[in-house]
């Protein structure tokens, strides 16, 4: 057990609460920095993909996990970012500028989608964003003069003011830097009044409003920040694959993003990363176990969807806090050994208040 002796108010909001945090996150950082020497190229590429999805996951976590608005069309923002970035990069715009434009345009689109979000909530918002996602996908497919239509477009290597990132290692470091920046940004945001306002809106709109929080402003802000992060992730995603087409940003991608944060753990920054690791490693695990399964099951194309579905159902039923919640339990068990009690994380049954009350 560790007891933190607080001597200063600033200790309540400091990012690293104690020496253990410094040690473990430092070790993780060192591992990530040394990764190109430690892991084979294939695994490094997978780690790059994990980092990219984590950025998108942070965005959707901010929206769904901390503001309580859930978007079923987040792949659209990913797509807007990816296409903006690809078009600008191919025109010869340097990487940071193109990335900023991609984020800005995504954020702008996020504001446009966020506006109806002020009037509708819950499932209506889900359907509005779902519809928006379909429309964006169709626009990307039809606006052939810019996006190349269903044939997709290729994208050049990232160009940092004349320094072209050719190798996978360099691109990995680029993704790492952006991910760390995004993570610190989100962590910092969450301890500012803005972040607290988001959380207040998530917990109760009415009480947030009565505390003087401007709902429209903060909801739109959350949408645009989330969309901007998705746009950044989209830009990196485009570089990673070097080829993008509209069907990479369809409804299944949106659902994958949601699945990622639910499995990672809604409402925790760690969850975005754990979910991304899950999302990227799951297909690998499935293809590894394929050989041991009977051919009829192992070779079926639907196996992945089946496993995803089962895992998703299992998490919602048995571990609603996701992988991060599971880790919290394990950690508490270890910290309190042997005094852990069964009911410590008992789910409170909070009967949903009807939205239809007169």
């Amino acid at each position: 057990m560790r007891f933190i002796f607080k001597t200063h108010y600033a200790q309540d909001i400091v990012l690293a609460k104690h020496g253990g945090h410094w040690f473990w996150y430092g070790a993780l950082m060192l591992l990530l920095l040394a990764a190109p020497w430690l892991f084979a190229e294939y695994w490094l590429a997978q780690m790059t993909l994990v980092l990219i999805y984590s950025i998108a996951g942070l965005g959707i976590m901010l929206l769904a996990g901390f503001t309580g608005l859930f978007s079923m069309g987040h792949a659209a923002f990913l797509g807007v970012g990816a296409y903006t970035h690809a078009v600008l990069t191919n025109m010869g715009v340097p990487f940071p500028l193109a990335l900023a434009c991609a984020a800005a345009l995504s954020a702008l689109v996020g504001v446009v989608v966020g506006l109806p979000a002020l009037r509708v909530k819950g499932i209506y918002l889900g359907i509005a964003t779902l519809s928006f996602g379909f429309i964006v996908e169709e626009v990307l497919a039809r606006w052939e003069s810019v996006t190349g239509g269903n044939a997709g477009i290729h994208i050049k290597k990232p160009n940092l003011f004349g320094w072209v990132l050719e190798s996978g290692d360099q691109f990995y470091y680029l993704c790492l830097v952006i991910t760390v920046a995004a993570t610190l940004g989100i962590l910092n945001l969450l301890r500012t009044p803005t972040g607290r306002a988001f959380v207040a809106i998530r917990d109760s709109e009415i009480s947030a409003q009565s505390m003087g929080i401007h709902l429209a402003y903060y909801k739109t802000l959350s949408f645009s920040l989330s969309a901007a992060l998705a746009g950044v992730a989209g830009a990196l995603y485009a570089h990673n694959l070097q080829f993008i087409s509209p069907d990479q940003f369809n409804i299944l991608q949106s659902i994958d993003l949601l699945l990622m944060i639910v499995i990672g753990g809604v409402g925790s920054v760690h969850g975005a990363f754990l979910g991304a690791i899950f999302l990227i490693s799951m297909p690998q695990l499935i293809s590894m176990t394929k050989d041991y399964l009977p051919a009829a099951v192992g070779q079926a194309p639907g196996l992945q969807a089946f496993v995803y579905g089962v895992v998703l159902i299992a998490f919602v039923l048995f571990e609603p806090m996701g992988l991060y919640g599971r880790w919290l339990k394990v950690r508490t068990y270890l910290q309190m050994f042997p005094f852990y009690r069964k009911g410590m994380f008992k789910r409170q049954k909070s009967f949903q208040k009807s939205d239809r009350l007169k």
Partner: protein
Amino acid sequence: MLFLQLVISGVAQGCIYGLIAMGFVLIYKATETVSFAQGELMMLGAFCGLVCMTLLGFPYWLAILCAIVGMALFGVVLERTVIRPILGQPAFSVVMLTIGVGYVARGFITMLPGMGTDTQALPVPYKDQIWNVGALVLNVEHMAVIAATAVLCVALYALFRYSKLGIAMQAASQNQLAAYYMGIPVQRLNGIAWGLASGVAAIAGLLLAPITFVHANMGFIGLKAFPAAVVGGFGSLPGAIVGGLVIGIVESLSGFYLPDGFKDTAAYIVVLVMLMVKPNGLFGEKLRKKV
């Protein structure tokens, strides 16, 4: 004449959307949760019918009956095993859960050896028949959809208006707690609502199957039924059918008169406009949440 033709095919397509949307609405009214698995339930229903007809060799009507009853039972079991344990959790959890159910259903069907990955035609007696009424060419498959939807609407109306079960369900959907105090078994009714919704979805699947084909991804049409439900007002059964018809007709007309690409997005454009203009839908009641 062409216009009328387009409207009729739009109405037929709209009936399918309406039937699936009716499933959403039934479940939403009963349990205040939204099922994203409705399209997949429809797909399962179509596959059930297909298996009964081709593999088991049942006659047409028996196969239809088996598929509908089978899916209704499946719905009840589904509610009992996965939905009921998380009632009371945030709506988001239930949405993710039903998405998971949809994934499992789709994955399961594609894993069926020999039929999962192919597209099959459902052998119905009225396949490829055409009626000529004046200058109109009526596709019997479309007519069957419209007729079956009309019959189903009347049946459901009668159920909710006259039967004890229907009245109890209305009560439970208006106020669960009060209904519970009156001795209505609310949980059992939730199960029955899921069963009804699955049965209706199976009917939609069986009606749609001759028009498109039976394949594992036909459930994605369920995503177009959401706009139908919203346009009609999410909590209203007649609204679901009207919404479905609106979406179907708009889609059919825009496919012909507007440039490419509008056919697939028409439904979503309509719903976005609807949400901006009248978020409660055509038949939705105006509600405010009390603190």
